[in-house]
């Protein structure tokens, strides 16, 4: 399921410092989202970001997907404007589902870093679990893995690409209105 564009062979070893900094960056990013600081989260993205979540179609290993002229199915396939639109919606104060406030918790782990052909960009793989608790006992959780391209800029680390893979086919939740 890995995205072909992201299958890049390591070009050089990653320094201990860089790997440590990337791990810290991803923990900080998760906390910014847990704390619903969406405008600040948007600042962690590059202007040219592509953020995707493909659907995990359940076909047989041997079988091709039934033919269609349309492109593969994504749950999310956003550039910066699309992500900003989602963030703006959260900030309207008009999303009734989030009032009383939703409690968010993200666990990011199994972080692996590789260099890419672009010197200041790194391929970063991670696993996640994300939990939302609302109201009395409206608890939802999702697990999966991510493939990111992180870019080192003068302003700090930025997310230039993210592909989010969920393990579930049928989404068992009232919505996926959250950032992964």
């Amino acid at each position, binding site marked *: 399921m890995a995205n072909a564009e992201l299958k890049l062979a390591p070009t050089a070893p990653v320094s201990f410092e860089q790997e440590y900094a990337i791990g810290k960056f991803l923990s900080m990013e998760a906390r910014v989202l847990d704390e619903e600081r969406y405008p600040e989260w948007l600042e962690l993205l590059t202007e040219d970001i592509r953020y995707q979540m493909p659907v995990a179609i359940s076909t047989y290993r041997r079988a091709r997907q039934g033919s269609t002229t349309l492109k593969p199915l994504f*749950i999310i396939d956003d550039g910066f404007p699309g992500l900003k639109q989602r963030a703006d919606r959260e900030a309207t104060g008009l999303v009734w589902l989030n009032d009383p406030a939703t409690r968010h918790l993200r666990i990011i782990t199994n972080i692996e870093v590789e260099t890419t052909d672009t010197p200041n960009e790194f391929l970063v793989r991670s696993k996640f679990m994300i939990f939302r608790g609302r109201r009395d006992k409206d608890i939802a959780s999702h697990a999966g893995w991510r493939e990111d391209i992180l870019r080192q800029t003068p302003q700090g680390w930025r997310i230039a690409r993210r592909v989010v893979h969920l393990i579930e086919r049928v989404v068992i939740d009232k919505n996926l209105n959250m950032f992964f």
Partner: protein
Amino acid sequence: MKKFNYQELVDSEQALQKRSIFWEPAIYEEELKQIFNRCWLFLGHESQLPQPGDFIRTYMGEDDVIVVRGKDKVIRAFLNACTHRGNKVCQAEGGNTRSFTCSYHGWSFNTEGELAGVPLEKEIYDNLPRERFGLVPVARLESYKGLLFGCFSESAPSLIEYLGDIAWYIDVVTDSAEGGLEVVGAPYKTEIPGNWKLPVENAIGDGYHVAWAHAGAMSVVGAIGSGRSDNVLGITANNMGVDQSGAVEIVMNTHTVLTTLDGQSGYALYDHPEPVLAHLEKNRPRVIEKLGELRGRQLYGSETHIGVFPNVQIIQGLNFIRIIHPKGPGKFEVWTYAMCERGMPDATKEIIHDHVRQTFGPAGLLEGDDGDFVEAITHSAAGYATRQMQGFLGMGMGRKAPWDGPGEASPGLVNEACQRGFYDQWRRTMEADNAYEVIGQTAPVAPVTAVVKELRHG
């Protein structure tokens, strides 16, 4: 002998629905029998099965069903249940295959449903009558202009009789499409903790909730978000006012339609509607020629929600087909298929596809709001006192709008006419003694000989 007092459950005169219909397991069991085992149910679209061996899995009620195009190019539907002991013979959601092989003891069935292989057959059976052990076919399978429907009742009316007047509206989607209708190969699937009827009547008729329940999304998407307009579908930003003049809710005997009649507002929520609107205008003369002025000018391009009872909505504008699969009284799966005209330029198709994902996919900006109240309406009926309450759908009752097409029209899309129509049809279907009464007709005097119509494609 009716199992329940349906007059008490759905009071059409006063537009009241008792909330036990969303909760009682016994009522749900009766729905599986009276509704899902007798009505025509949407299975998919022929464009999903172009090649021999192409198959999809879906549900009819809670029955797991395989729809497959055989080597002979005929599309058939079967229960996904092994005739040996009942294991599923297919666990994939779709694809292409030569056979379906059961994972329990390895019986295998070809794409025509015949039992084609039994491991160790010669050693363990004496003359196993293979012909008796083919997959169980869904009794009826018919296509309306590419839309595939199945029905478990041998004695039900034909699909075209069942659709009745709604076919006139479906034609706007199927016949106007340049090069025919095209449905994306796989749907979005989400499981929501609510009763299946609530998302159905929400989608076919609840214009009232749009500006309020979706207030957050409405202030960032489409015309309002981009500042092109401060009202969408006649509803002013922040729910400050409503213009009911340009839209109608139409109720037929069995099915319903909500439409805005302006020929373009289907695209009001799009961030980039221009290429789609340009395509509509380019194609419109052809549609007018084919379907006449009323449908060509007023329906084609309008936000139009076609509700085919019980559980499929064909939604022009938002451009998706949506099926609600019941999963017990307190749960359902919603499946959403993007649809577009095959002859549209690829870039235009992409805009439509992007919009479906962005608005009503599982992470859609609007989709996420509805699950919450659907859950609350369903699950708070666990309380005995709450369950005695009735929902009220009296909006627009008695108001009529002039309308030259089939069905009775009531003005405005902030109206509950379609939802009343849905519950009236629910009651009619639950009370019906036979599958003909479901469509408000008595059965033919002579018993109908079941004809399993097969679809041939050359």
